[in-house]
């Protein structure tokens, strides 16, 4: 079995060594024995024994820093192990380079899409493996073949379109389709649904099941418990670099898994605080701008206003409009009862609006700069006296946020890029805590964030509310907005289509309104 789509037209240069030893379903295909990775003195992965069975969907869960990424990197040949053995189809293998992993049929689909945005969907799917005739690329043949694969998978995507014209979710599907047609035997998904809409996730799940039916072994890494239970046959839990255990999915439940992951019970993760609601902080009347039309809503002190909708429904666009990043075309903003004009981000910040944007990587952080600089970026004017920055206050402010938010770093001088998703989110939040605000807008604050950090972020919300702030929470994760919001607004196609108070509508109702069926 060489995977779903053998559009392989390799004039075989021996690159593909897969399928030499077909492993019967249910038998070990990949075995890790005492696999260990050390960085200097730090054990990122303590000696682990994990067996992956041929044809299973094997979920791996764990908090950020638990060692999941290290494991993926070891399996895909990105880094080399310190000690231990790996057996592939019964043979000891090195997995020393990415090429070795790929040639054995081990592929990974990453959370952040690593494809070429300026090439077409088809060109991306065939990248590095183009169909050639007499040294020239056969673009037409590739487009047709790619389209056939996409159609067959039930992805409604044009193969000739530029990748940059697709949503992130669609790009993820392209990445998966690419891996599917490369004779993959062992496919690792690293949090694939983080940026996907519900329909896109559903498409992806269908594809994963289909790959499984074809005999492909799937490793599925996710923070979302319900996905693990929906998809996986078995699940392995990592914590602090240790393999805690592997369970059959039928013999466990999410409470057990979460306690294995964090030693904390699930009740503590969602905890709705009931706080007195105060005066209205902000009110929009018929606000319109790029990507959203006629949005009227208000936020009061001490409440969380949730905005739910599919990606592209106009929630983030509304947030950017309110924050002054996008010009408004119509409507009014009233701030604590007074009509205001927000022309740019500074105006918004000066009023007391803070925005933790959707994408940490693209909008939230200066990744190749130190944590300290990132935290202080909104407040340098306050930290300066005359021409120069007060060095002492700069250091003090950064260190205070790092300590308060428990950002896991030895010093503020570490680059933001070296931090995990959860810690990066804390840096973004730290920026706005040091600036201070009356209205906090959190756009997808828990994407790619582990359960422990999620709980910390939720507790932080409660703290902000206690201090009299209001929160706009934008999330594609329904249980989150549903449980946390005092009022929940549903967006669809740029419009606010429904509003609910806490738990006044069912999940199904809210979903139906968001999808619009």
């Amino acid at each position, binding site marked *: 079995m060489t995977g779903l789509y053998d559009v392989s037209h390799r004039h075989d240069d021996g690159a593909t060594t897969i399928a030499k030893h077909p492993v019967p379903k249910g038998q070990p295909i990949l075995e890790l024995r005492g696999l260990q990775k050390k960085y200097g003195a730090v054990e990122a992965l303590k000696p682990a024994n994990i067996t992956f069975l041929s044809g299973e969907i094997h979920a791996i869960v764990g908090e950020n820093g638990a060692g999941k990424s290290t494991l993926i990197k070891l399996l895909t040949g990105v880094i080399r192990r310190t000690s231990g053995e790996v057996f592939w189809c019964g043979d000891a293998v090195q997995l020393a380079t990415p090429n070795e992993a790929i040639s054995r049929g081990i592929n990974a689909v990453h959370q952040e899409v690593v494809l070429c945005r300026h090439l077409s969907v088809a060109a991306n799917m065939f990248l590095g493996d183009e169909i050639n005739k007499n040294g020239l690329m056969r673009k037409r043949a590739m487009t047709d073949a790619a389209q056939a694969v996409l159609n067959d998978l039930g992805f409604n995507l044009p193969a000739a379109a530029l990748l940059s014209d697709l949503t992130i979710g669609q790009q993820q599907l392209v990445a998966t389709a690419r891996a599917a047609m490369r004779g993959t035997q062992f496919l690792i998904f690293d*949090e694939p649904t983080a940026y996907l809409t519900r329909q896109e996730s559903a498409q992806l799940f269908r594809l994963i099941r289909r790959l499984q039916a074809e005999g492909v072994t799937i490793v599925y890494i996710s923070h979302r418990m319900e996905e693990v239970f929906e998809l996986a046959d078995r699940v392995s839990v990592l914590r602090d670099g240790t393999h805690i255990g592997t369970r059959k999915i039928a013999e466990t439940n999410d409470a057990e898994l979460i306690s294995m992951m964090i030693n904390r019970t699930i009740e503590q993760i969602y905890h709705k605080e009931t706080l007195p609601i105060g005066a209205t902080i902000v009110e929009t009347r018929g606000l319109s701008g790029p990507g959203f039309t006629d949005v009227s809503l208000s936020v009061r002190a001490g409440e969380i206003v949730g905005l739910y909708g599919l990606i592209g429904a106009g929630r983030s666009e509304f947030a950017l409009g309110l924050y002054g990043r996008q010009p408004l075309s119509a409507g009014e903003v009233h701030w604590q009862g007074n009509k205001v004009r927000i022309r740019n981000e500074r105006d918004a910040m000066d009023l007391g609006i803070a925005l933790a944007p959707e994408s940490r990587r693209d909008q939230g952080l200066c990744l190749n700069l130190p944590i300290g600089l990132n935290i202080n970026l909104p407040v340098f*004017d306050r930290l300066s006296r005359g021409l120069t920055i007060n*060095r002492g206050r700069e250091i003090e402010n950064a260190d205070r946020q790092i300590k308060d938010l428990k950002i896991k770093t030895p010093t503020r001088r570490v680059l933001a890029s070296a*931090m995990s998703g959860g810690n990066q989110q804390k840096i973004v939040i730290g920026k706005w805590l040091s600036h201070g605000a009356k209205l906090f807008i959190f756009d997808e604050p828990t994407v790619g964030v582990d359960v422990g950090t999620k709980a910390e972020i939720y507790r932080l919300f409660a703290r902000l509310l206690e201090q009299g702030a209001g929160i706009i929470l934008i999330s594609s994760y329904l249980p989150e907005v549903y449980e946390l919001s005092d009022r929940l607004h549903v967006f669809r196609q740029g419009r606010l289509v429904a509003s609910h108070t806490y738990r006044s509508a069912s999940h199904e109702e809210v979903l139906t309104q968001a999808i619009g069926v």
Partner: protein
Amino acid sequence: MSVETTTETAPVPKKGMNILFGLTLLGLLLFLWLLLGLSTTSFWTSNNISNLLRQGSMTAILAVGQTFVIITAGIDLSVGAVVGFSSVTVAWLLQQGVPLWPAMGITLLVGVAIGAFHAFGIVRMGLPAFIITLATLTSLRGIGLLVTNGSTISISNEAFTNFSRADFLGIPSLFWMVIAVAIPAYIFLHLSRWGRYLFAVGSNSEAARLSGVNVNRTIYLAYILSSTCAAFVGLLLASRIGIGNATQAEGWELQAIASSVIGGTSLFGAVGSVHGPLLGAFILATINNGANLLNVNAFVQRIITGVLIIVIVYFDQLRRRGSR
């Protein structure tokens, strides 16, 4: 997700790492001086050292200005042309009978205007920095040649031309000018919030914008500073050669970029310092000076410079990667 496990193993940039790198470059510079002192008799003469400092000074000032722009992930290809154009401007103004100080002031203002035009092209017209500064590079040479009708304007003001030959405390006045530029530049880049904004814009302009940084103003600032440094160098050059000539300083933009990069500035933005490009400029000047003293063919000198740029920057890359 991503690099979770590196949390614990994340590189902890030593506080003195920048300084350390500066010291490595300083060591290289001193090593070159020692080597030349041993292999030639003429290197350690006061005449030659003065000459070396004068040669390096102008590139050094250009490189500092260039570094501001490169930190924002931009590039300023026009600085050589601005130097030539400024020499013409000041010579022409003096020829028209404008007093010395106003003439110099106006020349610097022309530099400011050129920088503002670059930023306008980038911010408002959406042109890549490479293109807009390349366009002014060629245009300014053309305007300068039109004004001078293809020849040169000689400068008769002796106070002006004597300046570049003067010494103060035994050190050439041109080198004092480097110090006069470097100190405020250091305060600006490393101690003020505007310096931090340059880094933030170079790292991720959208994140900077959403954090309340006025990105457009920061870009204006960077390009204006670069062009003003170049106009200042134009004054120094005019003083040194006593003429205004639009074709002077050919290729100096590349010298400035090379100095900056040798000094540890990253062309991808968000990495750079003030002391790095200064040392880079004097390393380049020393190589040229030494090659002259050793009678190395002028054509070969260019090749050596090219190879050295590759070697130095390559080792810098290795060092960075090693620390990751």
